């Protein structure tokens, strides 16, 4: 019961936070100098043209009224409005970009799991031995290379020098699965490495902690091999804290993916978010930022709910 109440409370707070995010973004776009009309017209803006474009985009409506109209449309019609620049429904613009980023994220995730798990497991098994120290150093070095530098180094090696992979990841719309995988390997690898180094570091410490626990020693005494103990007992137990990092990583993919997308010319969600912000296309900015905020908040919410449900004290109380 307590758990239930806690979870409902959390959900309510999360929703409130999202509305807060939308208000913050709207205010920010309003106080930022210039508007979408002047952004589009740029060098060619004239007062007459600006006025006509502004009218077409309903920028002449007072901001507060615009905000509540927009919020109302979402709340009652699940309608995110139309982009000011292209006059297309926001959903139609965002959907393919989100799909693209999800595809990229999926490949990155496939690479991320082994990149995070294998070194961590090796380190835990060979604790405080040369292999552990060696992998720690590699981990630390990778941890210290920013994603834009890592992507550039991968590009120098695999595109410029060896020409194993294409420089552009997202041009082929009708590509086969094989072609797609070939094209997104480098951006996915960049993301996967950036995420894996964080997770791997946590996982190693957790694994060691669990391996030291009483019941694991018992299992070992019963004659199970260290690897079997690790796979059967330690790994599942240390996954939960690692899930936390993974949730954070997911939020990172959505928010920071723009750098990797720019590097490899991949038409994804991150670029759309930054581009629409630079164009000050309010409905698009709102929708994209809300999606990334929702993913961050959702990931944290899941982690919280997990913690509440797994907390024995709360479970007993219900």
């Amino acid at each position, binding site marked *: 019961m307590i758990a239930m109440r806690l979870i409902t409370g959390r959900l309510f707070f999360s929703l409130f936070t999202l509305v807060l995010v939308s208000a913050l973004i709207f205010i920010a776009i309003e106080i*930022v100098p210039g508007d979408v009309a002047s952004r589009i017209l740029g060098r060619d803006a004239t007062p007459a043209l600006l006025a006509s474009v502004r009218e077409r985009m309903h920028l002449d409506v007072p901001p507060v009224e615009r905000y509540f109209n927009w919020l109302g449309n979402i709340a009652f019609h699940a309608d995110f409005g139309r982009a000011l620049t292209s006059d297309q429904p926001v959903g139609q613009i965002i959907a393919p970009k989100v799909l693209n980023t999800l595809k990229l994220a999926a490949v990155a995730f496939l690479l991320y799991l082994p990149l995070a798990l294998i070194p961590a497991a090796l380190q835990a098994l060979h604790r405080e031995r040369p292999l552990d120290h060696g992998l720690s150093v590699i981990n630390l070095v990778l941890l210290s290379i920013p994603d834009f530098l890592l992507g550039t180094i991968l590009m120098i090696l695999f595109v410029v020098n060896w020409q194993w992979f294409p420089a552009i990841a997202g041009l082929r719309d009708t590509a086969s699965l094989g072609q797609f995988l070939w094209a997104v390997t480098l951006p996915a690898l960049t993301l996967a490495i950036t995420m894996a180094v964080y997770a791997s570091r946590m996982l190693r410490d957790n694994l060691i902690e669990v391996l030291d626990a009483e019941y694991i020693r018992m299992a070992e005494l019963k004659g199970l091999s260290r690897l079997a103990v690790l796979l059967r007992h330690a790994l599942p137990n240390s996954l939960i804290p690692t899930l936390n990092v993974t949730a954070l990583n997911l939020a990172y993919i959505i928010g920071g993916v723009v750098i990797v997308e720019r590097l490899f010319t991949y038409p994804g969600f991150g670029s759309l978010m930054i581009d629409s912000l630079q164009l000050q296309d309010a409905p698009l900015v709102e929708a994209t*930022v809300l999606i*990334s905020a929702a993913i961050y*908040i959702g990931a944290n919410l899941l982690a919280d709910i997990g913690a509440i449900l797994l907390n024995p004290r709360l479970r007993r109380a219900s």
Partner: protein
Amino acid sequence: MSDSPQPDLVAPPSRRRAFGQFWRSAPTSFKAGTIVLLIHVLVAATGPFWAPFGAGEMRTGVPLSGVSWLHPFGVDQLGRDVFSRVVHGGHIVILLSLSGTLLGLVIGAVVGLLSGYWGGWVDELLQRLLEAMISIPFLVLALLAVITAGPQLSGSPVMVALVVAFVYAPRIARMARAAALDIVTRDYVLVARLRGESAWSIMRRELLPNASGVLLVEFALRAGYAPVLIGSLGFLGFGMKPPTPEWGLMIADNRQLIFASPITVLGPGLMLATLVVGLNLFTEGLARILGRSTRPVAR
């Protein structure tokens, strides 16, 4: 210096011995990190005096001529020596990272500690606001700040430090609040409150000293990521402006030269990566000394 005959001019031997003991017992990561950082600080502080060329000096060699003894990091398109630029840029990167993080720490700590101390609906509202800000991707926050500042301010060091602080403050505030929630339940805070001390003075005298460990680790952790954050901003064109030899900006600027002269990217990259390695090692060691565990920076 250590064998100076005048005992009153050197530190008391006991303190020196204490430091020696501390250093010997310090974790390896702390020692390694300190050494790397010292080298970086030394280069940053003295570099402008011994760098072979000026930061903006053109005609130092044939553009894009690659690695040579005279130009270990090559020559960029404008004919500038990349090594000299990297050396000239060290203090910029370090000062920006530290000042931005420090500002974020001050703001974050004050807001977080007070919020935790006050509690109630103020705390609740502040927490929602902080969470809202944290949930907005940091690049969006940074870009909003840059666009709002306008072309005159954008790219100035003050602006970059402010952006770093702006991104970090809510995240640090949340940590500080968690620490405060724990501290406010202690007796001495209750006593101070009963004495009628103001919230500000309680925060300064009771909360801050007791949260200093957490905040110190938090500061080191954030400072370690700050060069990356500043570099990312420079890479996307929202950071320092050319011809400032900020490393992230140099990597971004020279990226189009990776076909002609990859070393012009790898040189600044090497410096950036070693600085962050140093900061990370230092932080890990520091956390171990203070008996706290590090966690990855939530980006």
